[in-house]
């Protein structure tokens, strides 16, 4: 069932230069699918069909898709709230997105968690908790496990916004990755606002990439509105990490083209930013680039759009038919060790 909701098998790159235009086209199609899917959920939200919040990655698809595409089987991915494009490129089914947003029992979170708080940790896709920066050390630990288990050539990527760089968890985890020389790719998307807080109330350094030297890791800056640059920068950083060069810190600059969530009208976003290069819509930039390079024409773009729309409509229709969780049938047990639930008989312990 799940496979029909994937555009294609997840891209599995080797550590070589990005192959244009195939990679670029594939990236664009995931960005487009993410945009269409999120717009559909936003419209369902406005229609009162979504319980809880809706958080969009509008304007952030280029950096996100580049991260998801640079990873391969066995790698770890810890996306944040604006990483729908990266999730699809990493191999998450569109159904995981729609089932979770619609609270279906059959989704990966079974109605126990919602919206962007979803994942399949067995498949390397971590379900974020809301506490910013907290997923990075979890990725570190998975990479430490790979080292213990002699699983070679794997990397882990974690995505954060610029606001998360103010947390202790960010500091502890990036320092930890540096000390352990882990193949961590930490992607910071500086979209100028953390909820409503502008950067001058968030940090005082000139450029977030300057933090890299303080941690002893490699730093990269990239225009987050330019898909080519994102593919090349992230691709290069992932290759470097895979080749044993240690943690890579990437700072991508863009503008959040939506509210923090769909409940937020984002009136605080300065007009000044909208007129800058970082205020461009990365999807428009990519589309114009493909047309200019003749990597696609208008009819191809139209077919891709309609393909995305029909995939999304199907996934939503399927998910709307799925039953909601039933409190009477719910397994109200937070423990994997069922015998340790209070009221259950204790089991004997045999010591070696």
């Amino acid at each position, binding site marked *: 069932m799940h496979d029909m909701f994937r555009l294609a098998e997840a891209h599995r790159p080797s550590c070589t230069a990005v192959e244009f235009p195939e990679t670029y086209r594939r990236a664009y199609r995931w960005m487009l699918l993410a945009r269409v899917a999120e717009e559909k959920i936003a419209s369902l939200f406005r229609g009162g069909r979504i319980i809880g919040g809706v958080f969009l990655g509008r304007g952030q698809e280029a950096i996100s898709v580049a991260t998801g595409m640079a990873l391969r089987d066995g790698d*770890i991915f810890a996306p944040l709230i604006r990483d729908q494009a990266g999730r699809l490129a990493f191999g998450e089914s569109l159904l995981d997105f729609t089932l979770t947003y619609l609270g279906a029992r059959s989704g*990966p*979170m079974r109605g*126990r*968690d919602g919206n962007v*708080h979803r*994942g*399949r*940790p*067995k498949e390397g896709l971590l*379900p974020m*908790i809301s*506490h910013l920066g*907290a*997923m*990075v*050390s*979890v*990725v*570190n*630990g*998975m*990479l*430490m*496990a*790979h080292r*213990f*288990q002699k699983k070679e050539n794997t990397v882990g990527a974690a995505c954060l916004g610029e606001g998360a760089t103010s947390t*202790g*968890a960010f500091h*502890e*985890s990036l*320092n*930890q990755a540096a*000390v352990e020389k882990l193949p961590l790719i930490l992607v910071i998307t500086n979209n100028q606002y953390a909820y409503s807080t502008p950067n001058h109330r968030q940090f005082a350094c000139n450029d977030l990439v300057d933090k890299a030297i303080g941690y002893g890791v490699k730093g990269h800056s990239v225009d987050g509105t330019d898909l080519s640059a994102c593919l090349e920068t992230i691709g290069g950083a992932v290759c470097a990490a895979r080749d044993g060069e240690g943690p890579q810190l990437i700072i991508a600059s863009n503008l959040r083209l939506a509210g923090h969530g769909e409940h937020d009208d984002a009136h605080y976003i300065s007009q000044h930013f909208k007129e800058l290069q970082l205020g461009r819509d990365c999807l428009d930039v990519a589309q114009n680039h493909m047309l200019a390079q003749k990597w696609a024409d208008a009819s191809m773009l139209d077919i891709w759009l309609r393909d995305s729309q029909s995939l999304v409509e199907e996934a939503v229709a399927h998910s709307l038919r799925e039953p909601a969780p039933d409190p009477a049938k719910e397994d109200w*047990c*937070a*423990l*994997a*060790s069922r*015998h*340790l*639930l*209070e009221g*259950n008989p*204790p*089991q*004997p*312990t*045999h*010591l*070696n």
Partner: protein
Amino acid sequence: MITYLEAIREAQRQALENDPRVYIYGQDVGAFGGAFKATKSLAQSFPGRVLDSPISEDAMVGSAIGAALQGMRPIVEMQFADFSTVGFNQIVNQAATMFWRTGLPCPITVRLPSGGTPGSGPFHSQNLEALYAHYPGLILMTPATVEDAYAMLLEAVAIDDPVIFCEHKYLYYHLKADSLPKEALPAGKARVARAGRDATVVTYSAMVHESLAAADELATEGWEIEVIDLRTIKPLDTDTVLASVARTGRVLAVGEAWPWGGVTAEILARVAAEGFNLLDAPPMRLNSKDTPVPYHPNLWGTHRPTARSIADSLRVLLRS
């Protein structure tokens, strides 16, 4: 003879020996052997599996969670229980929710050197079991004996859920046993540490020994006091507590931790709700004072319950 601290070290040695998935991570735990020497010589015996961490409790726990998701069985040593609050978020929001949210177990053991010792002061003396027990998804162990320190730590590593292992620093060197146990009560099962018929003391960790000393004192006055060692705070063995109260009709809950919303409050709530008709007198509890833990031994000795204050409480209970 083997001490409580040596039992903890031996349990870790055994866990490393038995299971290649086990590793130890914490501040100074490597070549140095830990602030209390709970990992002494383990780094030499198990190269690459006993790792010094930076002073980063959040990242220590976060990475252990990640490793556990990938099939490892990490043991994290907090240098002092008090410092675990820096890693609190990872424990209660990441580790404790993982199985419920994803169906994937998160088998980590977090060792918390807990409790007061003379001169330790506000930030090296805390008992945080109630704080962690509040959160669903965690197991709370509070061993009071050398045998339990060994057996329960081995069990903690084997359990598929996150275990908060509260080992008491006051017992590290004071408490000795002849040998390590071959078998043990399971987690979730309390132990009758001393049988009696006149009143029940329900307690755990170092307070078991203060309560036993109080029971000795009361015995000279003709009272027979039953002492229950809970062993695990969560799950809490309500059955053993109620069975004891059914025998004695009187209950005193004793904890070294602060009183508000703590383990003793939970015990008495259960006794009142499920065993009200077993009681011949209002239930009582005794905790530390509701202030930070003081530094000076004169103050500390009064701040926490002692054999003397437990005996005084028991006399009130027995006369009511």
